[in-house]
């Protein structure tokens, strides 16, 4: 009881000053829903915390300086070599600071996991429709976090001033220089004059350790606060509706689980840092503008930009005495502009097309939004092809195919691939919907063949169990557009008029394409239904199930 008494004492002391008992009691019982995919965001959060911890340690030894020094440290192959202080201090961290290499490698792995986690988390949010009202703000914050993460990563791995990262900065300079009108000015301001100059490393350093982390921290805090305040979405299931949250209370369950998960993430990063070498800058050598090694690859999250630069044909023209370097600034801005800009606009576009202004707290299964899922897979294909093209030289060498074929493949692939992916995904989703319908309407095949008194053979089926049925029945009724409601298409209501209205109507048809909702044989809907067919989804699904017990059919 002494722990209890100590806690009670502390609690009383705090409460006398802060008045927290009621608020914190509520906090202890806050319900968190559970699903494996909800851990993806936690991966990102915990990677970020580990990045802050390891990054702080690294700053104690790292020297963000481009002053030339001759190396005299423990790494023998580079002794006597001229290099920047930044590079020399990174060697020092790796070879002369105990545990320095481990911290450096954890930091680098954590950065990769941070970015990979953001991508995975974002994909989860998109495919389950968790960005829908009221969570659009958090979706936009997420896209901002992803963009900041890209810059944070690029600036971070540029700091050691090794040959590989120096090449990355050179590309950054070349790309900046290509922008119309302001390009050369921007490049000269960024680098403090001609490349490489003596200021870029200190500047990137302060951006990397202060400016961007502060923004990331603020936005992550806002992101988590909104998630907390609006309550987490949940996957469809028995007893889960749009108006409740089913799960475990924050104290002690969620707190203990998420604490354990933090240690898991940390352990995985430590294992990677212990056994898998990452960014061995001592092998690359110090930066030198004359040298470059073959097969240079950036970290994976920059791969798509690299691929875009490689895939672009050599289009460049001089108009009015000025060079328009389409071959550089178009691939630098367009593909990510399409993907990120499109992602940012999508929730609002979807709302406008479908007219769906409802709050959504119950996630979609990806198959239940076939067009959205198809668009998502299509974008991933587009992004993936560009990303792979970023390593086309490696692919060409390992698969023993001519280098230029890979580039031509990507040039065609970024148009054909997404189209095929769209079509294929949509067919698969609609097929899965029909399969679900079959399960709802006819139950699960049991493999037992029975002969009827009339001699007819039938296969027995058993009804889907309640938990599964609730998931199957989660497909939502798609609300109609206002034009359909009036029933007088010759006088369309406002919002449906003109060219824009027609576009909206056409897109609506594409976006809401779905298999017919399951139709439990209506002749049997005879009042023995107990409503469980509709229990899983509350207000999303008014059209069926009223009084019809869907899965009893086969027992008649």
């Amino acid at each position, binding site marked *: 009881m002494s722990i209890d008494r100590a806690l009670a004492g502390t609690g*009383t002391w705090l409460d006398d000053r802060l008045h927290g008992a009621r608020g914190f009691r509520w906090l202890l019982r806050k319900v968190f829903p559970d699903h494996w995919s909800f851990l993806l965001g936690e991966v990102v959060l915990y990677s970020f915390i580990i990045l802050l911890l390891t990054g702080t340690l690294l700053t104690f030894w790292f020297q963000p300086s481009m002053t030339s020094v001759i190396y005299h440290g423990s790494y023998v192959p580079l002794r006597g070599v001229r290099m920047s202080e930044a590079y020399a201090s990174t060697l020092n961290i790796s070879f002369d600071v105990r545990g320095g290499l*481990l911290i450096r490698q954890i930091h680098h792995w954590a950065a990769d996991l941070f970015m990979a986690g953001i991508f995975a988390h974002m994909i989860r949010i998109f495919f389950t429709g968790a960005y829908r009202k009221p969570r659009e703000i958090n979706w936009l914050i997420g896209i901002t976090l992803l963009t900041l993460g890209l810059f944070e990563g690029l600036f971070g791995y540029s700091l050691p001033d090794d040959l590989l990262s120096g090449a990355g900065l050179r590309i950054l300079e070349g790309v900046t220089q290509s922008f119309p009108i302001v390009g050369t000015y921007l490049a000269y301001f960024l680098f403090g004059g001609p490349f490489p100059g003596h200021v870029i490393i200190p500047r990137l350093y302060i951006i990397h350790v202060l400016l961007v982390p502060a923004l990331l921290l603020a936005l992550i805090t806002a992101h988590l606060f909104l998630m907390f305040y609006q309550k987490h979405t949940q996957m469809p299931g028995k007893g889960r509706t749009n*108006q409740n949250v089913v799960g475990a209370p924050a104290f002690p369950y969620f707190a203990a689980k998420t604490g354990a998960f933090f240690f898991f993430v940390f352990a995985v990063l430590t*294992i990677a840092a212990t056994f898998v070498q990452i960014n061995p800058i001592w092998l690359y050598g110090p930066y030198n503008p004359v040298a470059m090694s073959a097969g240079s690859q950036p970290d994976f999250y920059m791969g798509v930009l690299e691929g875009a*630069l490689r895939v672009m044909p050599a289009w460049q023209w001089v108009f009015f005495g000025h060079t328009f370097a389409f071959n550089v600034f178009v691939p630098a801005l367009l593909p990510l502009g399409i993907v990120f800009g499109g992602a940012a606009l999508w929730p609002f576009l979807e709302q406008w097309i479908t007219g769906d202004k409802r709050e959504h707290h119950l996630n979609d299964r990806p198959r239940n939004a076939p067009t959205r899922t198809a668009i998502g897979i299509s974008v991933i294909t587009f992004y993936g092809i560009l990303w792979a093209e970023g390593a086309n030289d490696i692919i060409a060498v390992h698969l023993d195919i001519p280098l230029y074929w890979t580039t031509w493949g990507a040039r065609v692939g970024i148009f054909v691939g997404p189209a095929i992916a769209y079509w294929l995904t949509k067919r698969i989703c609609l097929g899965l919907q029909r399969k679900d319908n079959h399960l709802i309407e006819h139950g699960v095949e049991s493999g037992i063949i029975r002969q009827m008194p009339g001699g007819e053979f039938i296969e027995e089926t058993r009804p889907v169990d309640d938990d599964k049925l609730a998931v199957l029945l989660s497909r939502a009724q798609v609300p109609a557009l206002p034009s359909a409601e009036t029933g007088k298409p010759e006088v369309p209501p406002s919002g449906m008029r003109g060219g824009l209205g027609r576009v909206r109507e056409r897109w609506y048809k594409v976006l809401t394409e779905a298999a017919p909702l399951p139709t439990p044989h209506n002749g049997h809907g005879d009042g023995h239904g107990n409503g469980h067919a509709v229990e899983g989804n509350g207000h999303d699904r008014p*059209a069926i199930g009223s009084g019809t017990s869907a899965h009893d059919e086969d027992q008649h």
Partner: protein
Amino acid sequence: MSNSNPSGDSGDTAWQEYLTGGSRGAHGQSAGHQADPSASASTSSGEPEGPSAPRRVIGTPSPATSRTMLPQAGHHGPQRPPRELPPGPEDPIKAKKAERIVATLFILAFLAGLGFIASYEIFGAGSLTKVLRSNLALGGTLSLSLLALAAGATIWVRNVMPTVELTEQRHLLASDPKDKEEFKETWEEGTDASQFVKRPILRRTLIAATIPLGVAPIILLRDTGPLPGKSLEHTVWRNGLRLLVYGTNRPITPAEFASPGSIISVVPEGFQNDDDALAKAATVIIKFRPGQMVFTTENHPVPNKVVENWTVENIVAYSKICTHVGCPAALYEQTTHHILCPCHQSTFDAAQGARVLFGPATRPLPQLPIGVDSQGFLIATGDFPVPVGPSYWERS
């Protein structure tokens, strides 16, 4: 209309019902399978529950004389709300077994943590082998400790704590119209009192006052670097400057560079350690067999041709800085005499004035005019005729 709405206007009805919050919100409230069934009535959030938690006007003193965080002394009075979480695990034998495993894992984490501290002392740093061992020992012990902690905590939650599933109600996020109306009134009272709307001269001058201050930080960024001016058009190469072999920094004669198909990187004498100069002046020289190069006799660059007067004994010099985004175009294929940039695979034909064969680069690598000085060493006879490196706006 989509075929997914087979039942006429029922979707519409639901729509209305949904928007108004509906009358069917009484689902849920099912406490978990294992949880105490009597708990299901009181699972909503921190709202005051029933008569035992009287509403208190904000600002008045609490009815409780003394408060602690402990439930038995809570101000719910004698009628304590029913338990929501069961006090212990459903299977005490299983829990006991799990308890032993968890404790073992925590001891393991403790020992591995000690091992980490010991490793820090035992394995030093300062050489490749030491760092290798130290990294393995530190990383191994840290990984083990973290993993054991994570596994222990997970088993604790799953097998020692009783299984619980609670249901909490959600409420529409939009405020009800009365609250919105009240907010609007309060806001308008504020704006009225501030006179912001009524006195446009105040409003406009205030906005005007802040604009220069908003721009000021951007103005201050101006001195982060000089303006480019004409600096991108030139490199440090000029007539008489020797070509030094990159790496050894020694001058070279055509006789020393006699085997056809060779390529070496050269830097301008006096600028060997000047990275700013080298970033534009890095050059390669390539030796050809007689007759391999496609020459022009003009004294200025001609598309797809090598300026013959700018070569020495079938040695031609090209800028090493790729015209795409500025990587050093470092790869050379002897048999096809192609120069390849390893960054984005722009390919140039060295025999034809470094014209672009493939890839995103649009312009050939500029040719550097070279000759020999009185001592027979290779020298530049001038700067590149056109700007080297990536394209930029001012370049015509």
